């Protein structure tokens, strides 16, 4: 057994940060990506998921404690991180979105420095640019998924530095960032832990040794212990545990989708593949084709892990250790995606790391002959064109959002006017309790209103009937005057949650209660084109 990086031995691959031009390339990528991503800063398309973290952060600012005072099955990291941003920079959607800009630019720089360790500067730069153009823009929303990917990328970077230097500080940092990943998204954090376990096993099998593993474990424990201590002191530790394991029993049933599921509606499929001339359809197919490529990349990484473990054992390639580590991390993260929801969205969240495999494919060394030599230029052209087209399509979509809406949390832009926000702000007071049902917590945040219950959204098939009863009880007890009800929500279910049991769609006690006790005052169209019914209690007049 030998240490991977003996102090006296020359490092197999030079840390990129030691080379000044490399560092400047990374900095330039970061700055350029920041500027590029500003185009998306305040474009809001009223996605159901955006708003969960924002509403949670808002509740924390009001003194509430997650799990004890409001329900969430996320680990608490993103709520507190966003609340901290609001506390420091002001409570506005633009502040939260600026963090997305920072994350997106960091992904580009981190992918560059990780890819650069085995790839040419041109390929590594290309990957950085493609990450900036396609990853965060594919879902420019305030989500815990981006926070967790940020921590996961940092953990991976630190792990690589640990491998290169054998220094305790890098091992400690890798463990700490892995735990921050866990504290932002439990599945991804668990996947990252698993990735490190796979790496340790692969190194052991290869007759190598990853040094300072105790520092890694200690680093991983520190954030967890701090968090447990904090929630223990707030008497929320029991509820935190039950909330964090809640998805194991309730999330998967409704969120089970085929591997690489694209989440396209029939209209979207028709528009993409059946509308326009052949040339137009070919271009559209090219632009969406990265969605088919990205889910394959971690599978390739799993195969490469076998290959590079053998190479590491044979000591035939100086980059084998680095590649085994990266492949192990990707395999662990792949498991986290498969267990949670294996749709394209969840693959894109992890694309900054998955794109490393793409970089290796484009820059494969030692195979510069035969078929590989012939097809490599075409593969490179395809990647540049397809991923570039995808990025351009996302940019054009964002630039097309001209309609400005002044909300209580700042100015937003969208393609269509959001009548629901405007009308709700005109007829409710800031801080008033209203029910937005079933699933658009962003409205609470943007209109400055709050949910009457512990729940900011309700997903049929995932949330339980007991939770539905709690919502009904809160409507009765708190004398809620207004409900914003999306009556056609069921139409979204087959597209986004095809695994939802039919019984959960048919039986909706909250909807029944709303229909019995509230009257329709107005039908309002959201920026995303969905209709919301503005409803008032039957014993009150419509505004």
């Amino acid at each position, binding site marked *: 057994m030998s240490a991977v990086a003996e102090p006296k031995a020359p490092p197999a691959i030079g840390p990129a940060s030691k080379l000044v031009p490399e560092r400047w390339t990374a900095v330039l990528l970061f700055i350029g990506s920041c500027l590029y991503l500003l185009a998306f800063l305040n474009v809001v398309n009223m996605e159901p998921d955006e708003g969960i973290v924002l509403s949670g952060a808002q509740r924390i600012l009001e003194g509430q404690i997650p799990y004890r005072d409001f329900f969430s099955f996320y680990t608490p990291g993103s709520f507190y991180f966003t609340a901290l941003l609001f506390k420091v920079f002001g409570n506005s959607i633009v502040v939260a979105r600026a963090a997305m800009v920072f994350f997106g630019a960091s992904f580009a720089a981190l992918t560059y420095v990780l890819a650069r360790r085995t790839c040419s500067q041109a390929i590594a730069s290309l990957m950085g640019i493609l990450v900036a153009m396609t990853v965060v823009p594919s879902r420019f929303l305030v989500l815990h998924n981006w926070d967790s990917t940020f921590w996961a990328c940092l953990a991976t970077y630190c792990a690589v530095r640990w491998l290169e230097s054998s220094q305790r500080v890098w091992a400690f940092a890798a463990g700490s960032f892995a735990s921050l990943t866990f504290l932002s998204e439990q599945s991804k954090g*668990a996947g990252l832990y*698993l990735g490190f*376990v*796979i*790496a340790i*096993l*692969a190194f052991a*099998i*290869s*007759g190598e040794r990853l040094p300072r593993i105790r520092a890694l474990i200690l680093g991983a424990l520190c954030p967890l212990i701090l968090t447990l201590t904090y929630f223990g002191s707030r008497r929320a530790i029991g509820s935190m545990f039950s909330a964090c394991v809640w998805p*194991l029993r309730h999330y998967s049933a409704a969120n089970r989708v085929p591997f690489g599921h694209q989440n396209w509606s029939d209209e979207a499929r028709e528009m993409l593949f059946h509308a326009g001339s052949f040339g137009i359809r070919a271009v559209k197919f090219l632009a969406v084709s990265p969605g088919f490529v990205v889910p394959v990349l971690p599978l390739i990484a*799993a195969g490469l*892990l*076998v*290959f*590079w*473990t*053998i190479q590491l*054992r*044979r000591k035939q390639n100086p980059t084998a250790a680095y590649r085994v580590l990266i492949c*192990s991390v990707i*395999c*662990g993260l792949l*498991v986290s995606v498969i*267990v949670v929801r294996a749709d394209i969205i969840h693959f894109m969240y992890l694309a900054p790391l998955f794109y490393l495999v793409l970089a290796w494919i484009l820059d494969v060394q030692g195979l510069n002959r035969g078929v590989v030599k012939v097809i490599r230029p075409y593969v490179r052209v395809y990647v540049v064109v397809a991923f570039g087209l995808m990025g351009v399509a996302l940019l054009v979509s964002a630039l097309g959002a001209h309609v400005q809406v002044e909300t209580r949390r700042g100015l937003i832009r969208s393609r269509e006017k959001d009548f629901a926000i405007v009308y709700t702000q005109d007829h409710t007071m800031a801080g008033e309790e209203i029910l937005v049902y079933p699933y658009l917590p962003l409205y609470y945040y943007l209109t400055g209103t709050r949910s009457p219950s512990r729940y900011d959204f309700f997903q049929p098939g995932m949330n339980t009937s007991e939770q539905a009863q709690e919502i009904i009880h809160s409507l009765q007890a708190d004398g809620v005057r207004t409900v914003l009800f999306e009556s056609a929500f069921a139409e979204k279910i087959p597209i986004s949650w095809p695994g939802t049991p039919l019984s959960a769609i048919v039986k909706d006690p909250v909807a029944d209660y709303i229909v019995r006790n509230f009257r329709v005052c107005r039908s309002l169209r959201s920026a995303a084109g969905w209709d919301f019914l503005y409803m008032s209690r039957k014993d009150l007049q419509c505004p």
Partner: protein
Amino acid sequence: MSVSTPKAASAPAEKHSSIRNSRAHDLLLGTLPLLFAANLCLWSVFFPEARRGHADFRQLYVAGYMVRTGQSHQLYDYGVQHQLEDELVSPEKLSLPFNHLAFEALLFVPLSLLPYRWAYPASILVNLSLLLISYRLLSPYLPDLRQRWRWFPLCLFLAFLPAQIALMQGQDSILLLLILAAAYALLIKHRDLAAGVVAGLGLFKFQLVLPFAAIYLLRRRWKLCAGFAGSAIVTASVSAALVGFEQMSHYVRSLGSMSVGLTSSADQFRYGIFPGHMANVRGLIYGLAAERWPNTYMQIATVTLSVIIFGLVALSLRKEVHPAALALPATVVAVLVSYHVLTHDLSVLLIPALLTLESTGAGLHARKLLVWSAVAVYLAPLCLLIAPRHFYVVALPIALLLSALLQPHAISRGPETDVGLGSELN
């Protein structure tokens, strides 16, 4: 060990084949981290559910409880078993019936003294110990693997998916693995009678052990058969004494309804037996023809094909084959033609797969086929994670390994050729 011919092969050929083995070993070494990761994930998902009662162990636990509390005369009564499982383990709509010979229930009496929540982890520890003992028994015959990496054979034992499934389910397949490993070790030492006695103790999974013994019967290994018959009489007598003749005949009838009588999806769901999930001839036929053929056709095809395969194996094996080496095709064919093989039952394939990976003697082509078919058998159960509904395809690499073992010179003639027996024989 070599499953194959003498060490007479020429030096360059030896070197070449060693490289081939090395590639196969390297592939398995490289795959081990992924296998461990997959097992870890399965455990993290399965263990909490199993501890709540959703594991096969519930039927074995209740069987032990029934024997301990004097209710063994109702051991095969579906209603009583269902009621006790609901009371002692967890309420479920359907019960997993105890469908093994009754003597096995005696083994679970000690575990039934614990509450189910603790009996289940205890069963894991017991099974893990049995797995490690099996490893110890076979370890002397895996020098090549150990030479590659000290922990290689142990890791192969621990990472084999069917063995892990058996551990998770609290199943008895690892006990059968131990029994067959012990029989193999005894056969190497020419203790055929003892080997037969030990193999007979595996009759709680008679569908696997009977074809195994039948190969030896057809090869006229009388001592082994005598030992096996002795064990069979004892286990049958103990079983009959435990449950009575009425329950024994009820057991035989219930076996009929769980096998040939398993005609509809509702029946399959009731007993938790899905032929399409079996990696044997029956599974393959059900998997390929379930939607097209009536049940009777599939039964006939299964029996016919199984008999043909078994007959071909019996005819192909030469008289002079060493009884220990005979255990490898005997185990593989037992899995393939047995009527009822679930994923965890494939644990016994560790014996032929690992011993075949040690293969060093056969001719170049034969060895290549042997080693790579063993690799295929080892990795094929991963199908459970990728395409569980098509698990029947795992029967194909098993058939490939069987055909590789039946090649001329693939299996040794006797101890003088070392054939898998290595230094133990010398």
